[in-house]
């Protein structure tokens, strides 16, 4: 039977290369694949394009990436309160594409679902509409938001089974399921791995078809 379990975070980030586009799940401190974030820095890659809701709040999260200066550009909805990022941003050493949160996750979904983006009512008549194609549908204006895809997606789940089905924990779910669909290689850091068949097939949030590697975070 399919088995996507890898030993540790280091094995989980194998193949990540300079210049790759990477999605990282999480909202605030919920849903962050902390062991992976560390392993990416240790892998020594650089010039990453990062797609993520936030830009780091505490020292052991995405802050690590900005301290290590491995991000060339971030596509993000709310990079405020992110000290290490802000420092680089002020110096012009990192590029920012600011995207409304709902637009961000829906662009990711569009990437994962094979659509050419989506016509959004959000941002019409604001700075967020600049340079975007306007579509008129049913008497209303929409702006065409383009799909997002990545080379790697790194998210945090609660449980995974050995074939790669994943559940999440409360509000740690956030952008993770959409991101899991939109990358060439999707890696999930979980609290615990269980045998295939142990997860309720009705309650699996990310089916294994989207998942390439899972590993259990070592207990603190």
């Amino acid at each position, binding site marked *: 039977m399919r088995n996507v379990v890898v030993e540790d975070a280091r094995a989980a980030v194998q193949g990540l290369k300079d210049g790759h586009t990477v999605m990282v799940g999480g*909202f*605030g*401190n*919920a*849903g962050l694949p902390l062991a992976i974030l560390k392993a990416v820095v240790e892998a020594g890659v650089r010039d990453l394009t990062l797609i993520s809701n936030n*830009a780091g*709040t505490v020292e052991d999260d995405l802050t690590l990436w900005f301290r290590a200066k491995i991000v060339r550009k971030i596509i993000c*909805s*709310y*990079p*405020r309160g*992110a000290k290490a*990022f*802000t420092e680089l*941003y*002020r110096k012009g050493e990192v590029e*920012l594409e*600011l*995207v*409304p*949160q*709902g*637009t961000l*996750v*829906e662009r990711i*979904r569009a990437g994962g679902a094979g659509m050419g983006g989506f016509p*959004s*009512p*959000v*941002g*019409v*008549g*604001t*700075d*967020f509409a600049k340079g975007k194609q306007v579509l008129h549908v049913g008497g209303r204006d929409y702006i065409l938001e383009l799909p997002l895809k990545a080379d790697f997606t790194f998210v945090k789940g609660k449980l995974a089974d050995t074939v790669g089905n994943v559940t*999440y*924990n*409360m*509000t*740690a*779910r*956030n*952008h*993770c*399921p*959409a991101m899991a669909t939109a990358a060439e290689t999707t890696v999930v850091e979980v609290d615990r791995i269980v045998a295939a068949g142990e997860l309720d097939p009705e309650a699996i*949030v990310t089916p294994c078809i989207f998942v390439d590697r899972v590993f259990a975070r070592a207990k603190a």
Partner: protein
Amino acid sequence: MKTLGRSELARMVALHLPRQGFVNLGIGAPTEIGDYLPPDTDVMLHSENGVLNVGPRPPKEAEDWDLINAGKIPITLGTGGAFFDSTLSFAMMRGGHLDIAVLGAFQVSERGDIANWTTGESNGAPPGIGGAIDLAVGARTIWVMMDHTTKEGAPRIVRTCTFPLTAAKVVSRIFTNIAIVDVTPKGLVLDAVLDGLTPADVQAVTGAELQPAKKLRKIQPSGTVVS
């Protein structure tokens, strides 16, 4: 000038919410409105990071950082609550399924434009937008809760927003620390004024013309409004 405190302002908004429906309380000050909902309310609170029926903040020792609201504050889950991913959460917002969103703002214009994501003056700091814009466009009814003026005394209710817009023509009601103002097709209508102030006092610190309501109401220092 006399003003309502932040808690009293939150209480005033809470008292105006209907007894049922789906409500999103924006991050920052509006979140506090939740503390003043009547215990028997049928209102269900939504938070855009993927939870419906947000309950009160837990005691410190019960905080779980996987259970937070959009303001990244620990919460509890009310009975009958549900978790879901961001695509469904924003479908609720963009799709018009929320009855009311209460948002903070830097400025609101007389036609209901809202500016609440940046003043345009960044001092080099990165801007943030989050989910405020999705709420402003998507919820059926948009209320704003804010101080009536800036710290320097400049009006926040204006003829035309000078700050970058979040959304155009969406706000229907503005709750401030000295007044309640309705945005109507005929312009701004002054619905209630803080006890001790006159409509002229409020107009003096407002950047757009206020019409008096047929029956002006009075805001008591507690945040209760009486006819």
